[in-house]
């Protein structure tokens, strides 16, 4: 019989949610009022973008899969708000929040969902495949855990070029059982790569709870010890805590070129994807409890109201503006054209799209 798992949750998660214990952490006190307001605004924008997506999905305009980030906003917001010029990121298929955080526009994100040529990937990627390499965002990857080796490669490249940077490689709790993730862990530790593996633990790998999917489910981050890597657990409902603890991992990457595994406890309010009726594996009470007591956007809102960074009127204005922006993005997506049939065979090969005297390829490469 398996030994019962010892739960290794962040200390702050063991108490009822209240004012953040990390508000006074230097990385948070260093934020100006304006920066704090901007951080809140970004979280609100993710929330309203995702909520707007639900309606568009229900109208039948979004195909494929739609994995929503609602409830997990503080993870992307907290981690990405710390990144600098040579810090890169890559994630799995629940990738909208990260995209909006790095500065992708709602328009290009929404148009991608509806398969329009004005989408970030010109309608070729869809919900699971957002990319913005100009903003150091390398996707958006559909296969669970498949992005982890790519992330180690980004970190390897940063180190190879002698830059003081890092890569944040995000994954869900379901990904920790994929072989590719363990191979990435081993390489990151073996070669001292400046990478942070961020496990966004929302408790369910699709419809299978952690207890039913993962040996020693008490702590996923602790698996880092098997590779001699540093690790930490974070309350993902508190954006200040996410920032404080991620900052330490970033310092480790920047100063020592060492990897870290961060397990960030979070929760998604909707099903695994919109195709998940969300009726079989958790009860409504559980969702309500998180919504009412641990909502990352509401908790940060309370924090900023108490800090007098924002007034109630400003909060309302920020949310209304985010909703309006999402509405406009929906209209933009609606009005945008589809890619053409000729577009189907573009962007397959760099050499084909850039044929000239310097390219090294000839011959037939797209077949009838």
């Amino acid at each position, binding site marked *: 019989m398996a030994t019962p798992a010892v739960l290794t949750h962040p200390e702050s998660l063991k108490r009822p949610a209240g004012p953040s214990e990390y508000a006074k952490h230097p990385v948070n006190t260093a934020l100006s009022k304006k920066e704090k307001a901007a951080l809140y605004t970004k979280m609100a924008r993710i929330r309203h973008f995702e909520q707007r997506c639900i309606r568009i999905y229900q109208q039948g305009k979004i195909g494929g899969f739609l994995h929503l980030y609602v409830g997990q906003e503080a993870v992307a917001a907290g981690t990405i708000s710390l990144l600098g010029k040579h810090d890169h990121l890559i994630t799995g298929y629940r990738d909208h929040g990260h995209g909006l955080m790095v500065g992708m526009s709602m328009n290009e994100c929404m148009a991608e969902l509806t398969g329009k040529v004005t989408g970030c990937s010109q309608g070729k990627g869809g919900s699971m495949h957002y990319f913005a390499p100009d903003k150091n965002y390398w996707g958006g990857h559909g296969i669970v855990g498949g992005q982890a*080796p*790519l992330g180690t490669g980004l970190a390897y490249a940063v180190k190879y070029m002698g830059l003081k940077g890092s890569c944040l490689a995000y994954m869900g709790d379901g990904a920790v059982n994929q072989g*590719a993730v363990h191979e*990435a862990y081993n390489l990151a530790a073996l070669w001292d790569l400046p990478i942070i593996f961020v496990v966004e633990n929302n408790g369910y790998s699709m419809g299978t709870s952690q207890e039913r999917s993962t040996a020693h489910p008490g702590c996923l981050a602790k698996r880092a010890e098997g590779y001699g890597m540093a690790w930490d657990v974070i309350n993902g409902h508190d954006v200040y805590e996410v920032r404080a603890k991620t900052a330490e991992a970033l310092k480790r990457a920047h100063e020592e070129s060492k990897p870290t595994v961060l397990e960030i406890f979070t929760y998604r309010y909707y099903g695994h994807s919109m195709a998940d009726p969300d009726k079989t594996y958790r009860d409504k009470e559980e969702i309500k409890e998180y919504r009412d007591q641990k909502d990352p956007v509401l908790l940060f809102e309370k924090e900023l109201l108490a800090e007098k960074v924002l007034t109630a009127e400003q909060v309302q204005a920020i949310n209304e503006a985010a909703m309006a922006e999402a509405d406009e993005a929906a209209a933009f997506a609606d009005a945008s054209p589809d890619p053409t049939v000729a577009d189907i065979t573009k962007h397959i090969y*760099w*050499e084909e799209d850039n044929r000239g005297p310097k390219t*090294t*390829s*000839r*011959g037939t490469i797209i077949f009838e």
Partner: protein
Amino acid sequence: MPVISYREALRAAMREELKRDEKVVIMGEEVAQFNGAYKVTEGLLKEFGPKRIVDTPISEAGFIGLGIGASMLGIRPVMELMFWSFSYVAFDQIVNNAGNIRYMSGGLINCPIVIRGPANGGTNVGATHSHTPEAILASHPGIKVVCPATPYDAKGLLKAAIRDNDPVYVMENTILYNDKGEVPDEDYIVPLGVADVKRVGTDLTIVAHGRAVITSLKAAEILEQEHGVSVEVVDLRSIRPLDEETILASVRKTHRALLVEENKPFCGVDAQVAYLIQSKAFDELDAPIHRVSSIDAPQIYCKRLEDQQLPDVNRVVREALKVLA
């Protein structure tokens, strides 16, 4: 012109490209300290040091994926697979990530990665180590595949592959590593997608790639000496991109075609070549197209039988005579 081996030609290509571009990195199992499982990378660690020549753990999904990620940021990794058979544990990285990311990003990202290593049967190592995945991989748009048959092509194709901005998978052959041929010292490339007429003839076109080219050239010699038949041998060199024009030009001249490959027959490269010929040169054909492939079974261990499982000279001659009948 210097005469060097296929193995030395590959090494020369890597050495020249390592010198030309500091973003080029050689990575793989045993490539550095051990000097390469087949000594292809021998001496490179000593010459270029451990930053450029990197030993990896036995972890193909991990290190191939790492190379793909690094290539997205502009590094040009040349990854060695000890056997292309081992690519199967890295299939998600090789196909889903390297092959799709440019497309799925609407052209924002490209992967200038090279993965190279031997992909052949005939070495008495059993089915798991004898795969020839050129057709499987070339069937994925986004991926390029080349199969050099001679030292000259090995060097020129590998150099082109390293400079190419797309993922290029170079499939070598351990049985060819000691083959010698003329290879210029100076810089040259063999562009991808350009076939080579290795022997000029008038009566029959044999289309082949990889070691099947060498087998076909021997068969052509016998056909000429013993049967008075003039055979043209077209070496594809590159599977994707494919030089359709050279194949068609040869068939238009000889009006007969035999396709030879070391793959298994089902959905092999030559299934595509046969379709090409019938769709674009049907009226030129004086006889049905024939194929010679490996006998359709997992690769057998027993050496005496494995040699018969692969296309050999006798089988090529026999099948050629059927096309000529």
